[in-house]
């Protein structure tokens, strides 16, 4: 009788052997946090509040000089002021892994260190969702409900910002659905658009995150773009439209914390603690962040079919 693999399972051969590599399932890993698209306004540490109020006044030439008569009394021009709040709140992600699960792992596997390192990626995803939620509140929109995104919508957005004298650089956050519809629209474009190198560039395959520039606008694809009313709520904006603040947890919070390892990874505090009674390790990431749309006049929403 021949020695067959089928006969050797499960004593001599394995039904399946686990591969050494640890792969990651498909997820949107785009990050926009460390770009010029969002202003970082520092921390609320030592400020006395978890909420920061950004103050705006009509200076910088908002009020022009006026011609008056030679001996006329100059009238008083009042300042216009407004403000925007950034409320810093807590966000967290907790993992828990048993000792035997860690010990039986391969060299590259799910273990406390891998889980701790991955916290920043999860934080970036959370940050994206804050940005898209804030961007969805644009009071002026272009596009049509239930109609696919087109190059006309893109240009309408651009014109809207230019007419409002919004300073650049410009950014656009689009859902992959909107981006694909735009690619479809660009294929049929004529005139000057069809000859632009940027048009050809946009039509090439795009992965996650930054998808290229067109007409001076940096385009980002994000699956976190808000959906509402059967539409995707993308948006285009200029410089200084969004701002965020964080709270950084320092050693004052750790006094008397007992046995734990705390590592500040970027804006995330990752702590690893042992639960010896259950023989498990807790990996907890905490981040305190708030993000706000600072000025409505600097943004235009792009509302198109989902």
């Amino acid at each position, binding site marked *: 009788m021949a020695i067959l693999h089928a006969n050797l399972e499960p004593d001599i051969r394995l039904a399946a052997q686990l591969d050494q590599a640890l792969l990651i399932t498909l997820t949107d890993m785009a990050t926009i946090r460390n770009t010029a698209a969002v202003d970082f306004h520092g921390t609320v540490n030592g400020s006395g509040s978890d909420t920061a109020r950004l103050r705006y006044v009509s200076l910088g030439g908002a009020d022009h000089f006026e011609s008056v008569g030679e001996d006329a009394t100059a009238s008083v021009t009042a300042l216009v002021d407004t403000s925007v*709040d950034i409320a810093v709140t807590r966000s967290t992600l907790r993992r828990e892994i048993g000792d035997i699960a860690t010990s039986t792992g391969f060299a590259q596997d799910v273990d406390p260190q891998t889980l701790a390192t991955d916290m920043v990626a999860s934080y970036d995803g959370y940050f994206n969702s804050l940005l898209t*939620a804030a961007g969805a509140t644009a009071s002026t929109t272009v596009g049509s409900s239930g109609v696919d995104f087109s190059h006309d919508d893109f240009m309408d957005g651009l014109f809207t910002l230019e007419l409002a004298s919004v300073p650049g650089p410009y950014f656009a956050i689009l859902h992959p659905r909107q981006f694909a519809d735009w690619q479809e629209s660009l294929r049929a474009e004529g005139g000057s658009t069809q000859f632009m190198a940027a048009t050809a560039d946009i039509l090439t395959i795009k992965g996650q995150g930054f998808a290229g520039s067109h007409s001076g606008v940096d385009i980002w694809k994000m699956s976190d773009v808000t959906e509402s009313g059967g539409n995707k709520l993308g948006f285009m904006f200029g410089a200084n439209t969004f701002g965020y603040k964080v709270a950084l947890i320092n050693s004052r919070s750790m006094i008397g914390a007992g046995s734990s390892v705390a590592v500040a990874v970027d804006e995330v505090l990752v702590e690893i603690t042992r639960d010896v009674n259950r023989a498990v390790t807790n990996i907890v990431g905490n981040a305190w962040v708030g*993000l706000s749309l600072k000025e409505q006049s600097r943004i235009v929403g792009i509302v198109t079919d989902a």
Partner: protein
Amino acid sequence: MSHRFTGTPIKATSTKSQVVEDTALPGRPTPKFVYCHNPSNWSFHTDHGFIPNVTKIQIRPGVNGCKRPPNGHIPMLSRLRSDGWIPIDESGPIKVTDPESGQIVDDMGYLHQWEGKRGPIYQDAWSWPTLLGAGSAATCDWSSQFDRAGFVAWQVQLRDSGTVPPIGPGIAARLLKVKGRRADRRVADGHDGNPHIQAHVNREHAELEAMKTAAVEAGAKVKGRAPTAKKRGPGRPKKVTTDGS
């Protein structure tokens, strides 16, 4: 002559595992929200004229000044009100399409909660889930079954009931200008006889004319007429030389 062979019915597939029905929906949980209307945000519908757009304001701590629950959204909504936004009561009357009859009917409350595997999912009354795929790879599509007719009927209701004030003449004029630019952009391409582009141009101009009528009703001043695509004339006759060339 009968034979002694017998066949036993068997199954091509069998499983010992038990499939558990899971009614919770896949996907990330979503926060509660309030629909708000900004007086500058309107759109044009060919059947209903100008209708108010509504914006989904998520009650999400950390976004736009929203603080921690349970009352952290109150300062955010107050600020929106002071900036001219109009929050729409989430328990108020709405219009939806009756799935049985297909008719638009009255209902109450636009904020609906669905059970999600990872937490509650909040959607509006017009969004219905469609499962794509199965198992761990399953996703939930909320847009393909969207009740657009019901949603538009609700927008009309918001306008006609006075929940939101009428569109301002300046807003109507601005929308008209944007529409006019879009309608005219491909007129030149239509001259070349491409029937697809010509149909597009005609459609845009028909909508533009309807929009002009609605804008006039809203008090906007409308100047001029939209240029229409004309077919090229035969042009000058070719010069014929005496030698016939």
